[in-house]
């Protein structure tokens, strides 16, 4: 009964189509002539942590950026196929990417705090979307977000200091807190822990686990251990293809594809 695969199999049965948060079909991404994402079909579930793994340059970040249309800002990027969020095609002309991104938040691979105070960094999103009615509510959101980003204790005495004055790892947690502050339904995290020490990493993983109760989280990671620890689903990308997608426990204990097996055992990538 303690076999993780059996437990997962039981949860699997309980799923119905309502639990699919994002449905991607036949997605292609081109950067100019470079075909970076090829025929990707994937269903990302609600209230689940999904890990994207794969060797460097295989298109994990690219696919992640498709989900909140961040690739719109890259002139040479071209996207084909269909991505549905709650059944709505996000590339439909009637969809406003600004509203989409309010629902699908993102933490980037490199920390990018605004050159504003720590407080204003966090308050930025809530202010834009009018999440706080007054200063007290805003203060509350800022404190809650910083706590969830596991950085409150380090910055609570210097909320007026510029966000850029923090260390790299602190900046990354600030960016996580900033993304959480807008209460997105889906949080996309691109290697959020690559600049963090083990303690901060553990705190962020705790946060991810906590977010799972309400949101769908997609995390790109190069750490197999992290993928195994935090995610329920894992997608393995290789050279722009989605090679294998399934329960994390299956991918790590019983990969179906030989490329997945070589990657998780450290032979490619």
């Amino acid at each position: 009964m303690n076999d993780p695969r059996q437990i997962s199999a039981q949860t699997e049965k309980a799923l119905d189509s309502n639990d699919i948060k994002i449905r991607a079909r036949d997605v292609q991404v081109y950067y100019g002539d470079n075909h970076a994402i090829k025929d990707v079909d994937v269903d990302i579930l609600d209230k689940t942590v999904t890990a994207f793994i794969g060797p460097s340059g295989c298109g994990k970040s690219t696919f992640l950026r498709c989900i909140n249309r961040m690739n719109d800002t890259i002139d040479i990027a071209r996207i084909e196929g269909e991505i549905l969020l709650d059944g709505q095609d996000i590339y439909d002309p009637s969809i406003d990417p600004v509203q989409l991104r309010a629902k699908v938040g993102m933490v980037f691979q490199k920390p990018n705090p605004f050159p504003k105070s720590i407080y204003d960094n966090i308050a930025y999103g809530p202010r834009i979307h009018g999440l706080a009615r007054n200063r007290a509510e805003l203060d509350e959101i800022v404190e809650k977000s910083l706590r969830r980003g596991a950085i409150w204790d380090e910055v609570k005495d210097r909320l007026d200091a510029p966000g850029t004055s923090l260390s790299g790892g602190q900046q990354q947690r600030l960016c996580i807190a900033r993304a959480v502050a807008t209460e997105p339904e889906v949080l996309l995290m691109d290697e959020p822990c690559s600049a963090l020490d083990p303690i901060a990493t553990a705190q962020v993983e705790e946060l991810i686990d906590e977010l799972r109760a309400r949101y769908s989280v997609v995390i790109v990671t190069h750490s197999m251990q992290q993928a195994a620890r935090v995610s329920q689903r894992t997608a393995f990308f290789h050279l722009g293809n989605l090679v294998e997608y399934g329960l994390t426990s299956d991918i790590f204990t019983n990969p179906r594809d030989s490329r997945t097996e070589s990657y998780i055992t450290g032979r490619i990538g």
Partner: protein
Amino acid sequence: MLGTTFVVILALSAGWYFLLRRRAMAAAGPRLADLHSRPSYHGFYAALGSFLAGTAVLLVVGIGWGLWNDMQLQNQIGQALPESSAIERQLVLSDAKAVADGALPSRSGELRSAVAERHATLETARQWGTAALALAAALAFGLLAWRRSDRDFRARNRTERMVTIVLWATAAIAVLTTLGIVLSLIFETANFFSNIGWRIDKFLFGTTWSPLSGVQSGQMNPDKVGAVPLFAGTFLITLIAMIVAVPIGLMAAIYLADFASPRTRSVVKPMLEILAGIPTVVYGFFAAITVAPFIRQSGEALGISVASESALAAGVVMGIMIIPFISSLSDDVINAVPQSLRDGSYGLGATKAETIRQVVLPSALPGIVSAVLLGVSRAVGETMIVVMAAGQGANLTLNPLEAVTTVTVQIVMLITGDTEASTAAGPAFTLGFTLFCITLLMNIIALRIVRRYRELYD
């Protein structure tokens, strides 16, 4: 003669280069790597050293010997004309030199021909002597290098030290020139102030500018050197120029950096920068011949009386001239704001407008401010447009439709006017010095801001 010597020194050092390089290679023996310095460094050391030694001797001895000769000729003249004034003696000397060079003297006479003869002998000695000494120095340095050059000789370190000294010297020249200009400005300014009995307050706060009226003996009337109208004029025109240039330049920069496609940008940006390449004289007569009449006619149509030369015309055209400074610099700083910051903002669901207003512009603000300050410096120092389009009358007014004058215009008037240069120079230098202080202050502020901006992303 001395020119030829210089060429010979050049050839000599080139020769030393090849000789020393050969020698170093020979000294190395079978393994070239045993040399402390590469053979070309041995060559460079000898070449650079002998060139510097020769040129330095050429300059120092050549000039010093010339001064010494002049002193001797002065003595000779002094003995012949013991009662004469310094200016008279100088006149005799320059006439004598003209005679010796075969040019036409202002007057001729026995004394002049005698001095000319003496000058010719002294000059020949100076030229041959200087040439010989310079060549000797260049040769001697090469020989020294030849004797020292062996396997362990640290030719590289010595060459590097020599190059450092040369670089230092060139930097020193730039700094000393600046210092010299500033000192002469200060000196002339002090001179002028002592001329008006140290009534600095009259200069700074007086409202009548007519410094040369009734000047006879170089003594000026402190009541007529009030520079306020000039600074008010400069201020007014600068203000108009910035009102034109800042919004247009800044918005053009935002368009170029965040909205234009790369194709548009690659066409529009160079076109804007062409504006900066138009000579200010052209802007000046554009202002005087096209813009000023247009403004006057428009004014008449509206029933407003407009002077034919107005601050408005000059200011508007100056603003157009400054647009590319502001747009180009601002575009650069806006572009320097990392894409990742914009992504961060978009990723939180911000619109393009929110991103530009709340993330991009604040990040670029220090750079934009310094671009604006550089634009202000340009406007304050600009002369040509104002000379042609704003008039010369020192009116104290803030009405942009009247003729005003600026600090720079008055400097031009003073220096190119009929009054003797030594009299007019005083107020002109003082105005120049004040202007210099203002622009210096602004440039310092701009540089400060730029420096702080650089630290932001490090």
